[in-house]
């Protein structure tokens, strides 16, 4: 990075550290921070969307839709995210490629499964094997986002489903009495009022999601924890210009600070939201803001 870094053996103290912390490998961990933040920024809303869809489906009066929603919640919520990531992503990837295969190569005569191999026609590969590396990475990232969203969507659906039921019945009845259709009642009364019941649960879910980002590595995305492990592990002089002992402690400490910071920011945001939502409500939280009886 810096000009004086060409021969690290002669450096010491801060100069050494400044070179050490700016190696290409360290750049990768800084990038990974961005990856994690980007993943969270996309997955959060996406999971909420899945959750909302799941909750709406689960409470639908149409039986098959309701089964679908309940099944989604029950099954996906039942599987530990790790186990899910260990086989689901590959399955998802194969599923997508298989669909493309059916669509793009109707004349393909060889079987798709040959022994343990999974072979689709070259045009159906996702992304195409000729695609540049960044496309592979974006695709992997997109699969990760989708998987996270599906998994956490199931939990969000459960929270939202509960919150919808926590809305006092009198409030809903009144809307019905005024001729609102179920949809209007849902949109105008249930949804605005459910947030106050849902937010603590959703906030927690968000925290769990943030803390699940280390699992990204299982999905083939190199996240900060992967790099922290890699960088912190003992380095012998043979393979690096910057040999050191087991420094995982320090890297993990840095991770701890990073995650605590992220948590703090999230908490402040959630707190603001909560204050906004409980404005004027006759609850202990609403009352804490004063002026409410």
């Amino acid at each position: 990075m810096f000009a004086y870094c060409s021969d690290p053996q002669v450096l010491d103290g801060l100069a050494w550290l400044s070179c050490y912390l700016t190696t290409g490998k360290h750049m990768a961990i800084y990038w990974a921070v961005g990856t994690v933040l980007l993943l969270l920024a996309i997955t959060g809303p996406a999971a909420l969307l899945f959750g909302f869809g799941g909750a709406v489906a689960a409470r639908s009066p149409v039986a098959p839709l309701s089964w679908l929603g309940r099944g989604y919640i029950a099954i996906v919520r039942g599987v530990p995210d790790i186990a899910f990531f260990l086989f689901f992503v590959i399955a998802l990837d194969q599923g997508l490629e298989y669909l493309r295969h059916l669509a793009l190569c109707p004349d393909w005569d060889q079987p798709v499964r040959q022994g343990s191999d999974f072979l689709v026609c070259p045009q159906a590969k996702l992304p195409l094997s000729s695609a540049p590396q960044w496309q592979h990475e974006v695709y992997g990232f997109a699969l990760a986002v989708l998987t996270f969203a599906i998994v956490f969507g199931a939990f969000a659906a459960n929270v939202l489903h509960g919150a919808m039921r926590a809305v006092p019945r009198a409030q809903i009845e009144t809307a019905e009495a005024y001729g609102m259709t179920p949809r209007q009642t849902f949109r105008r009364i249930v949804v605005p009022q459910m947030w106050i019941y849902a937010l603590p649960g959703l906030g927690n879910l968000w925290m769990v999601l943030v803390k699940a980002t280390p699992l990204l590595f299982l999905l083939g995305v190199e996240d900060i924890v992967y790099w922290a492990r890699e960088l912190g592990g003992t380095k012998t002089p043979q393979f690096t210009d910057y040999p050191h002992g087991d420094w995982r402690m320090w890297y993990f400490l840095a991770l701890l600070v990073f995650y605590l910071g992220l948590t703090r920011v999230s908490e402040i945001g959630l707190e603001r939201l909560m204050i906004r939502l409980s404005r004027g409500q006759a609850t202990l939280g609403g009352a804490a803001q004063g002026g409410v009886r």
Partner: protein
Amino acid sequence: MDTSPVIEIRDLHKSYGQLEVLKGVDIAAPRGHVVSLIGSSGSGKSTLLRCANLLEDSQQGEILFKGEPVAWRGTGAGRHPADRAQVVRIRTQLSMVFQQFNLWAHMTILQNVMEAPVTVLGRDRAEVEDRARGYLDRVGIGDKADAWPAQLSGGQQQRAAIARALCMEPAALLFDEPTSALDPELEQEVVRVIKSLADEGRTMILVTHDMKMARDCSDHVVFLHQGRIEEEGPPGALFGAPRSERLRGFLSSTLAHDPAHAAT
């Protein structure tokens, strides 16, 4: 003037589990008429109103709105309205003031009043706002338009609930003890409102514990006792010469010890 009933209830039965609350009630409210429902606490008055606008399923009997009978599906405890569109259609023409007010907690008072006309009837927002403020002024809480329900006194909440019902400008209204939290002055104002609504041709069913109000407003008074109609008739006759023992007992407590006596 058309005098066929706007709201008609025939032989209505309603139970909560084992508890039979309504045991065959018939009521007919023609256009522009006010029918008052009196009776002791727990006699089923609120339940009757809630059945009338289909918030509760009843187990037996007919409900007709403007001559159109509600279509049912199933029987007994499994009886539900068959046609959701019909239910919505009836309800948009039938506003209710709840005994516990049930203001929507997440909306300001003004939003509460504007909500149904804008969302359900699809009226123009600005026009509805004018009208809503007018009704809020009329019930004397124009200055509370931007307060939350939880910040209002009991009487103010009740008045907001009344304004909300009025703003729908429905063909018929159901009032469940609309003056329970109001002082005599405001009560008189509500009586005036009800009378002017009747003059406009709106039909009302009014549950009240206030015999004076029942007497002042209604064209017809129904005395409900333990889920049955014990006695009914025009207010003059009913209050002047109650026939049944029960009604006489019920009214006696109103007539004794009246400040009116002391004042005169």
